[in-house]
């Protein structure tokens, strides 16, 4: 109540602000790279399975080359997803955000675990679970920033849902 009155007064009087600063002025953070990483992991799982289906267990140079490339990209993008989430969690997320979203730390840990499992396996369910966990993280991230989100089918060969900010 008192705060509201002072806030009203502030609109006219413009009280001086005192800064309770942290190290760097507002950084630029976005979970988009993490989502692209997770979608790429799904795509690589699909391509790996399609290649096996096409070539059987064959060990032609073409098969080995294609498989090696798909695996390399899957490894890289699962790691990219983990990296991007770690940065946002470590640099952007503050104690008060965890207080408001108590599931946040558990969700980040889940993404780390799923990211590793996505590297170890060629399991589409794991890749989908990774994407869903990153989507949940993205929703919380944008909520913290006071920006609405929507879920849309990804406009890629993998058309699973991804969370986008409504800007």
């Amino acid at each position: 109540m008192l705060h509201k009155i002072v806030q009203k007064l502030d609109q006219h009087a413009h009280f001086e602000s005192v800064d309770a600063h942290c190290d760097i002025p507002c950084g630029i953070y976005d979970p988009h790279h993490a989502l692209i990483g997770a979608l790429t992991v799904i795509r690589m799982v699909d391509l790996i399975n399609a290649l096996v289906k096409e070539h059987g267990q064959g060990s032609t140079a073409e098969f080995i080359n294609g498989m090696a490339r798909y695996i390399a990209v899957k490894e890289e993008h699962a790691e990219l997803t983990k990296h991007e989430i770690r940065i946002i969690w470590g640099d952007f997320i503050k104690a008060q955000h965890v207080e408001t979203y108590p599931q946040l730390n558990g969700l980040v840990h889940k993404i780390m675990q799923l990211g590793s499992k996505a590297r170890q396996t060629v399991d589409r369910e794991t890749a989908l679970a990774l994407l869903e966990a990153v989507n949940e993280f993205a929703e919380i991230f944008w909520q913290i920033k006071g920006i609405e989100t929507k879920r849309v089918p990804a406009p890629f060969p993998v058309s699973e849902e991804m969370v986008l900010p409504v800007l």
Partner: protein
Amino acid sequence: MLRLLKVRGASLWPDYREGDYVLAAGMPFPARKIRAGDVIVFRQPGYGTLIKRVRRVLANGQAYDVRGTQIASSDSRNFGPVAQDQVTGKVIASIRAKQTSQNSQGH
């Protein structure tokens, strides 16, 4: 002299949050010395007007070692002790914002 000031940033969270107002008593404080634990308002070159908690009183009250509550807080770990002549006030009361403003990022 009393001044009403608005808190910006999360460096003193949860004691002071973004959007809180504080009432600061201006210098000098003949009856009210600054002690460890007090929250002071001071001018810091390159940073502007800051609000931090005094961790230690140095040089017989001529300077203060100040801290925020966050690892990333900008405080005496970055800019050294705050000299007494930089201090413009001591917080004597606060008016808390409702705890809904969660949209402050790495200030």
